[in-house]
């Protein structure tokens, strides 16, 4: 009996271990139920939903079916992804706000300056946490390279290297182009350059997303000790705190600037009327908020897993 390709296709949504355990049986079930005809849309959606849930479950992000260390690792990676959201939003925020002191009256500087300082300090602390986490996982990474070989590792990191190269070259290209064009007499940027800027921005965002996905894929392959996993969990919780500071700082800067120098969001001409809520700031705020929610879910899961596992250990110790 031939396997219907459409039936087998649904399996790609499930993790490898699940496919190994239930894959053949599941395909036969689909064959028995739908024959050689197409699988209805509702059934396909249920396969996508269930497969995604199984992936999240096997990664320790939902449920309690994997060991506490895998759950902490999955939750820490969620926080790392949230950091990725903030890196993108923060880079745009830094570029967008680079000339704010010129637009804000001297007397009203202190609050936005303090908020901006807090954002910059927190961004530094977040980068430090990422570096420390990277250093902690280095021995496990070397172990992985030794056991799996360079070829396997290269297959994993190739998409990341390619996307970073493309994004880097495109960024350099647009900077050179911008320098070449120079300031226009009317003070406006040519449309083609603006469109290219958007494309480069999308390339950079895609490259960051690929970096995040690669990091997650590698992190799940690392053989981390329980101690390192616990430390990574604590670092992830600290990172969540950093993200809260960045979000609060951004919000404070936005409100202070909207109150004291709203023209910064418009024509930059003092006292000119402009909206205190430009689209860029709304999008940045939403992006940071999404990151904060993801980090919150990760942190709650780390805290829940740690307290549950500590309770279990205490009970075992005194039994």
């Amino acid at each position: 009996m031939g396997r219907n390709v459409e039936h087998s296709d649904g399996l790609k949504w499930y993790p490898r271990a699940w496919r190994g355990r239930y894959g053949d049986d599941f395909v036969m079930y689909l064959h028995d139920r739908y024959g050689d005809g197409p699988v209805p849309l509702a059934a396909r959606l249920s396969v996508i939903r269930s497969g995604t849930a199984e992936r999240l479950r096997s990664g320790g992000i939902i449920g309690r079916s994997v060991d506490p260390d895998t759950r902490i690792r999955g939750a820490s990676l969620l926080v790392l992804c949230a950091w990725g959201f903030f890196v993108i939003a923060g880079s745009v925020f830094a570029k967008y706000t680079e000339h704010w002191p010129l637009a804000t009256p001297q007397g009203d500087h202190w609050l936005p300056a303090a908020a901006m300082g807090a954002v910059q300090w927190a961004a530094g602390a977040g980068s430090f946490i990422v570096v420390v986490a990277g250093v902690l996982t280095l021995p496990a990474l070397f172990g992985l390279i030794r056991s799996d070989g360079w070829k396997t590792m290269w297959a994993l990191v190739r998409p990341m290297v390619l996307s970073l190269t493309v994004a880097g070259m495109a960024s350099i290209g647009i900077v050179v182009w911008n320098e070449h064009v120079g300031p226009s007499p009317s003070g406006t940027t040519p449309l083609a350059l603006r469109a290219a800027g958007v494309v480069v921005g999308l390339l950079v965002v895609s490259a960051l997303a690929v970096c995040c996905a690669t990091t997650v894929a590698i992190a799940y392959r690392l053989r981390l000790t329980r101690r390192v996993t616990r430390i990574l969990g604590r670092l992830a919780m600290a990172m969540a705190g950093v993200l809260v500071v960045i979000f609060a700082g951004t919000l404070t800067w936005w409100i202070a600037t909207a109150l004291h120098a709203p023209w910064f969001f418009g024509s930059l001409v003092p006292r000119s009327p402009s909206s205190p809520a430009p689209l860029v700031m709304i999008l940045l705020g939403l992006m940071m908020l999404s990151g904060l929610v993801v980090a919150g879910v990760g942190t709650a899961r780390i805290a829940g897993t740690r307290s549950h596992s500590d309770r279990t250990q205490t009970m075992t110790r005194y039994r």
Partner: protein
Amino acid sequence: MAKKTTTAGLRRANDPPLLILTSLAEGPKHGYALAQDIAEFAGVQLSPGALYGAIARLEERGLIEALPEVDRRRPYQVTAAGSAELSAAMREMRRVVDVGTHRLGLLQGRLA
């Protein structure tokens, strides 16, 4: 108010794990036979994702187990732990049914 559940999380009469355990109480069945039986006795059409998601959870908790494949289809059967779990769920549901039946009788008496 907190939901009262058994340890396997069998809550409602149409919960996939409960339906699967009830179906398997009759004897081992593979996926398609399970889905057909459940549709017959409960009138519930489980989607492929829901059915296999519930099978995986039940097997993980040791409430059902897989038997050797027959014609590339894997039958499942209830374990002793699954039987105990189903029994506890049935007791809970019977309590609700008993209270509901008693109160309904009183209500119909008042309305008559």
